[in-house]
């Protein structure tokens, strides 16, 4: 687990960067058993076409560049690409958008990902406190985190009991529990995610500065969860 994750981290550090692009961040998460979509990094159009075929249309395309960390601002995320023809066309568009946003952007490739069924959006994050060390955060995504700041923290490492309490103590918990006749969300999957993030950060505490898994889609009870987007910021090497 740790070795695989460290391989990715060391490669990023040796290229002089401290911010992992989404693809790299997900590699690190995957090494710790976190659920990420079956997606692949295409370095050229041929690869993109092949991967899209393997995954099955429709697909999502996300351009990976260390200089573009806010992908939607740069319009380098294109969803619901339905055919090889459309993919060829969007391949040009996505590269052009990247060049318009940051002419100097180094492009690592385009992530070809399956279109995910939308679930309830949650955010899991990590930050480092100068006194207490790394803390893990949990909350519901969207307005709950942006406007209401309805989030909760614990110091890493956390126990299963901590994880369950975190989920229950946010104000928006009824949305996960199943308000207004909705099916309850898979809170066990969230517990599993929180514990895995805690383990990851505990192992890699000397490397990781901050982390956002945002959003994570959580499905109905028994249907699991998936990390849709992820960011990891490393500590600058000493």
């Amino acid at each position, binding site marked *: 687990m740790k070795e695989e994750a460290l391989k990715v981290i060391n490669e990023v550090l040796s290229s002089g960067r401290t*911010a992992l692009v989404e693809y790299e961040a997900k590699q690190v998460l995957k090494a710790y058993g976190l659920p990420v979509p079956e997606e692949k990094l295409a370095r050229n159009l041929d690869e993109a076409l092949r991967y899209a075929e393997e995954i099955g249309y429709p697909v999502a395309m996300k351009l990976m560049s260390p200089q573009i960390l806010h992908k939607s601002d740069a319009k380098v995320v294109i969803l619901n690409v339905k055919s090889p023809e459309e993919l060829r066309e969007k391949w040009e568009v996505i590269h052009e958008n990247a060049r318009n946003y940051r002419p100097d952007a180094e492009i690592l490739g385009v992530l070809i990902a399956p279109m995910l069924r939308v679930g309830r959006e949650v955010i899991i*994050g990590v930050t480092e406190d100068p006194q*207490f060390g790394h803390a893990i*955060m949990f909350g519901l995504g969207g307005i709950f985190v942006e406007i209401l700041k309805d*989030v*909760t923290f614990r110091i890493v490492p*956390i126990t299963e009991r901590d994880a369950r309490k975190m989920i229950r103590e946010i104000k928006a918990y009824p949305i996960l529990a199943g308000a207004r006749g909705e099916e309850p969300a898979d809170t066990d999957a969230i517990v599993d995610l929180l514990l895995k993030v805690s383990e990851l950060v505990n192992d890699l505490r000397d490397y990781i500065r*901050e*982390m956002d898994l945002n959003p994570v889609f959580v499905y109905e009870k028994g249907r699991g969860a998936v990390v849709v987007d992820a960011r990891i910021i490393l500590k600058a090497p000493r």
Partner: protein
Amino acid sequence: MGESVIEEMKPFFEPKAVAIIGATDKRGKVGNVIFENFRRNKERGIFRGNVYPVNPKLDEIEGYRVYHSVKDLPDDTDLAVIAIPARFVPPTMREIAEKGIKSVVIITGGFGELGEEGKRMEREILEVARENGIRVIGPNCVGVYVPDTGVDTVFLPEEKMDRPKSGPIAFVSQSGAFAAAMLDWAAMAGVGIGKMVSYGNKLDVDDADLMEYFLHDDTIKVVTFYIEGVKDGRKFIDSARKITRVKPVIALKSGRSEYGARAASSHTGSLAGADTIYDAVFKQTGIIRAEDFEHMFDLAKAFAALGHKLPKGDKVGIITDGGGAGVMASDAVAKFGLKMAELSEDTLRFLKDNFPPHAVAGNPTDVVGDTDAERYRIAIEGFVKDPNVDAIVVIVLFQVPLLDEEKIIDILAEYQKKSDKPIVAVAMGGKKTNHYAGMLEERGVPVYPTPERGVRALAGLVGYARYLKKA
């Protein structure tokens, strides 16, 4: 840590002989007040150790021989209290080290809080302390107050600040001014403080050391902290986890606002304020967070009286002699996340059979304004026996005409003693009510001036009981 900390810290709380460095006969000077504290406590027979004033310019104060230097001190000296200007402290620390004294309280201010030179002196002091195995409380603090052993380094004179009686509460404060004000208030409110430590700049002895000590201190049942900041977060977490499994710890943390603009590249980073992190630490370590100073002592009082019989669940029964107060208490039950107990059929029948027709059996049970003490007894008896009730709030408006105050106090004390359910009393009123409230507290029933505060304190007990069950 563990046993060694206990041994190291002991002289702070029960020294064989204390040296007051900077003792003087000039009234109002810090060195004079501290000397006077020890002198008076020795005369009263509370302080049983020796008192050695140290001052190069004096030979005698109040009949006590004054030592001209640390070197001259008798060998039984095991605690030094320093109240001399900052620049003399580092050389004095060296003399203390040579003398072999292992516990030092530095009252003097003007160190790290004032800038570079102060920080340099602090480093020098710490170095001497570490090399020689000396434990230091302070600098820039009011130090230690222990009513049982007569240790009192608080430089606010007795004429200006009352000292509280002894009790099972330990009180630790980063701020000296807050500590002093609290002691004064506790004395007035009749809250017993077993040990007070104000550590100021926290150069050496910190919250974690004190938690370790209080964990093993049988005279202490509840630990309260006023914290501004923690230095070693990991050590704090470890010590807190250990003690909260045995004794409740209540913390009042100041600085609730967010930390200004901390550079954060992630969403999470921008959402993490110092306060949210402390909240997390307190939750994870089982420390009970107080909203304010009043809450802190409301909780401390509840734990001191009821820590040995924590509620088994969160279902509250309310007994009152005033309808409005009962409603307020019910609202508070909902507000603080507790539940109103649903009385059993047996209890309801028992109450109805024994009540006059105009008294209201239920939850709340209203014994109404023409109640006597006996009607309260019936209500309490019913609630205590009801398996659906985990904790009882008894609101006593002492003002009602037929209520014999002494009798109701006896009844409450009796049930507090014989029932395993915690009973919290609420008494709203003025001077006369306060008088009876004081009597009730003496008998082991914590009393609160409003239903809201009573229920909030009870919620603290329920929360801690829940924590212990899962810890």
